[in-house]
Structure formats: structure tokens, C-alpha cells
């Protein structure tokens, strides 16, 4: 069953990646990137258990925190940026 979960997660990662490439708006990309991060955490937990990676839970916890901070940072800076951001 774990192998099935890993394969499902790999497919999920690929699909999320496609959405991140397609856009179309910047918010779609932010959503896709955040969702990619969450699925990475799940991948570490499931894959780490299946393959016996050392102290995988610590790393998964840190990924979750970093993902949270990163997405908040993107939202914050985009909000700061957008009033004059459309000039090229």
C-alpha cells in the first residue's frame, strides 16, 4: 500500500507542477507552489517511512514550517508590490 501511496504522490507532484507552469494568474502559481510544498512534506513522510530515511520526521516538520513562511512571504511581498508592479 505504501508503494501505491508513493506513486499517487509522485503523480500529484507532477500535476501540481503543471498548474504552477500554466498560471494563468500569479495567484494560481502561488497556490500551486504552496500545494507542491504540502505534497513534498507528505512525500517525505511516506517515502521516509518506506525507505527508512534517517530522522525523516524532523525534516518533514521543517519543510512544513518553511513552506508556511515562504507562502506568507510571497503573499506579503506581492501585496506590497502590486500598486506599482504593472509597470514593466
Amino acid at each position, binding site marked *: *500500500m*505504501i508503494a*501505491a*501511496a508513493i506513486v*499517487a*504522490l509522485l*503523480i*500529484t507532484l507532477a*500535476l*501540481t507542477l*503543471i*498548474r504552477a*507552469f*500554466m*498560471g*494563468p*494568474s*500569479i*495567484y*494560481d502559481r*502561488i*497556490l*500551486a507552489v*504552496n*500545494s507542491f510544498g*504540502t*505534497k513534498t*512534506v*507528505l512525500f517525505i*513522510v*511516506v517515502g521516509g*517511512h518506506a525507505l527508512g530515511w534517517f530522522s525523516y*520526521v*524532523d525534516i*518533514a*516538520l521543517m519543510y*512544513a*514550517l518553511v*513552506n*508556511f513562511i515562504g*507562502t*506568507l512571504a510571497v*503573499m506579503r511581498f*506581492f*501585496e506590497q508590490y*502590486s500598486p506599482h508592479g*504593472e509597470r*514593466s
Partner: protein
Amino acid sequence: MIIIGWLSDVCLLLGGFLVLTGAVGLLRLPDFFTRLHAASVTETLGAVLLIIGIMLDTGLMLDTAKLILLICVMFIANPTITHGLCRAAAHGGIKPAMETKSPMQNSTPSDSKNIYENQIQTETGVSGKAPK
């Protein structure tokens, strides 16, 4: 013991299925808010199920506590991000594709298509295109 193994398998399968569904929704649904919905709702439940499945499989040890902490973090962080993103998008002028003219009257499909295309055009510097 065997029952716990079964339970873990069921959790893993269900979680994997939910996460996969969420990704398909993220790819296929027509506008930002529906995609947000698809990604966040299934992802939160799927993540928790997957982690519970792993927890049942490892048995009771120090990692279990950390995994519970991880569930807490994801359970709080994901909805928060969804909320913030939704709010930012609404402020940033993203409109739902199926916007109705009045609560009583549903818009025709061609109308909603137009609104959606307008929204795509206002976003500058984007190389992607709308999904069919």
C-alpha cells in the same frame, strides 16, 4: 495487530486518493477560486489521513509525537494560507468565472466565458493559457 495494519492501509489508500483528486481538481477546474477549493479541502484531509496511516504503521515511539505535531502544523497552516490567498486574490481583482448577474438569474455559459477571458487579458506578463 492485523486490524491496525488494515486500518493503516485503508488510511494510506484513502489519503493518496484524496490528494490525487485534489491535484486533478487543481489542474482541471475553471477559475482560481474553484481551484483553491479543490486544492485546500482535499489536501488538508488527505494529508492528515496519510500521516495517520504512517503513524499506525510505525507504532508507538518518539516519532509518533512529532508526527502529531506535524498534523497540527499542517491542519493550522493550510487553511490559514488558503484564507490569506483567497483574500489577496479578491483584493487583487480576480473574479470568479461563473459570476451571476443577480442572485436570481444565472448567467449563460457564453457570458461566463467572456468574463473569464477578460480576466486572463488583464493579467499581464503571463505566458500560460486558460485550460479548455
